């Protein structure tokens, strides 16, 4: 989106209060952030042997998120979340209106982060959570499902000593070919112990066969379907829990996506010829891996299962010089269908592994000298099978964010 269009959204939003009685109900806030990442000694294939190289560091230009929230009256509110990366693009991450009939029944329409597990709704709240990278289910290179939806009904009711919350959402569907699909997302969770404990389940069905939102060669999809699929009908199931006990926060989440898919033979030929796939991927895509690469040799059935889980733990220690928060994370991810090459829609983590499986252990520390500023530094070790051997490489990350208006 251009700056002009984004500016129009902002101006329109800022004008909203003049149409309302609740002039002070408009809140504008957000944060600036910048990030540095550097990997070391990353293995690569040199024939049948393994060599290593250290890719250049990735120093992201500062980006910002500006949020505006306006409570028109007790029943209606609107929210917009603008993300600006570098100096060239402004992206409307969220833009929705919400009508609340009661705690048990709220309707939200617009561009909405769906309620799904512990992180999907709060991933843009970078300064507030332990860790820098998103859990693997929401890593931008291998999303299990699209993060946004269009219409969502949600609410909660008292149950025992806690609260039982639900949400149901739907939209046009993922992919370019969505005719006849009716995607449904749902989440149900129980929160108890004065907000200290949460257990929940999320689910999603594509509601019929669809395809990817990207064609082969145009990058990683922003949905759960890989670009070389002609048709893909899939479901995702996700279980999660969180405990906030005293100064400790503990989280665990598990997800599985079942894909009933049929590959697009021509797209697979493009991938095999141009993406630099490994032997296991070649054997998966082609009927005869050593035969001619043409549409007749493509294995059309592409059924596959993606699984991931993580454990995260953080501790908050308040000192006279601010908050210090050490954290530990362990991520596991398995996707046998993906490839390494991101330009072709792959993922440089799972796709580089022989079997599509990788582990990532992370240790880090968060420091907030004042509540508005968060420094995070962490180090990960990626571990996976490569050319028949178990390999690993380290990665360092640094993130600095400053929240304003809060």
């Amino acid at each position, binding site marked *: 989106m251009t700056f002009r269009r984004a500016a129009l959204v902002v101006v329109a939003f800022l004008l909203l209060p003049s149409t309302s009685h*609740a002039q*002070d*109900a408009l*809140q504008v*806030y*957000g*944060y600036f952030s910048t990030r540095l990442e550097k990997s070391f000694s990353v293995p690569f294939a040199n024939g049948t042997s393994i060599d290593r190289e250290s890719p250049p560091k990735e120093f992201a230009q500062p980006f910002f*998120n500006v*949020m505006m*929230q306006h*409570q028109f009256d*007790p*029943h209606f*509110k609107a*929210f917009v*979340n603008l993300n600006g990366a570098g100096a060239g693009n402004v992206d409307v991450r*969220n833009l*929705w209106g919400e009508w*609340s*009939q*009661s*705690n048990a029944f709220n309707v939200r329409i617009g561009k909405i*982060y769906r309620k799904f597990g512990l992180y999907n*709704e*709060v991933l*843009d*709240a970078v*300064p*507030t*959570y332990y860790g820098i990278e998103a859990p693997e289910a929401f890593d931008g290179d291998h999303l299990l499902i699209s993060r946004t939806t269009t219409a969502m009904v949600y609410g909660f009711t008292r149950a025992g*000593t806690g*609260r039982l919350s639900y949400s149901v959402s739907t939209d046009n569907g993922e992919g370019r070919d969505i005719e006849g699909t009716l995607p449904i997302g749902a989440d149900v969770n129980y*929160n108890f112990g*004065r*907000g*200290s404990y949460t257990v929940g389940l999320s689910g999603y069905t594509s509601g019929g066969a669809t395809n990817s939102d990207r064609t082969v060669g145009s990058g990683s999809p922003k949905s759960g379907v890989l670009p070389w699929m002609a048709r893909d009908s899939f479901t995702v199931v996700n279980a999660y829990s969180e405990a*906030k006990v*005293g*100064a400790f*926060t503990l989280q665990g989440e598990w997800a599985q996506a079942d894909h009933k898919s049929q590959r697009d033979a021509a797209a697979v030929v493009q991938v095999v010829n141009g993406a630099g796939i490994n032997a296991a991927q070649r054997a998966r895509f082609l009927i005869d891996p050593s035969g001619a690469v043409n549409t007749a040799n493509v294995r059309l059935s592409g059924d596959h299962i993606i699984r991931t889980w993580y454990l995260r733990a953080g501790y*908050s220690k*308040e000192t006279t010089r601010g*908050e210090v*928060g050490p954290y530990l994370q362990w991520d596991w991810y398995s996707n046998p269908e993906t490839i390494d090459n991101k330009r072709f829609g792959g993922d440089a983590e799972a796709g580089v592994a022989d079997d599509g499986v990788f582990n990532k252990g992370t240790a880090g520390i968060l420091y*907030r000298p004042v*509540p508005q500023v968060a420094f995070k530094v962490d180090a990960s070790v990626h571990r996976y099978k490569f050319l028949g051997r178990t390999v690993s490489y380290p990665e360092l990350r640094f993130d600095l964010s400053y*929240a304003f*208006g*809060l």
Partner: protein
Amino acid sequence: MTLRALSRRALIALVALATPFFAHSASAQISVVVSASQTKSLSEREIAEIFAGASTTWPDGTKAQIIENGDAVLTQKFFAKVVKKPTALVRSQWTKLALSGQGAAPKKGADAAAVKELVKKSPGAIGYIATSDLDDSVREILKVP
């Protein structure tokens, strides 16, 4: 009297003078307050859930507006006794709710008078002050010893 002894006495005197201010917050009873015109009440558990960020609404669906008290010692005591979590974790949860649009950004009153003013004029507001600062402009819904 040496300069060193004089400095020590001056330091002791300063601490003695400052102690009542801190002691006021540390030992004060705390009142959770809402607007005087607000007729509904909340249980202690519901209050804890709102301040912990687990709930963003009143039982009738009204959006809750948290008013934070600028008195750091009082705030720390309130979070420890009612929410049972460190101040930094609670603030972080409020920020998370605001950044994701799930809840309103908290408002902050520098002192009890400012908190009472914000509670009076903000729909769905809930704040906390030292009980000794209570007056008719707000209504107490919970006293924290």
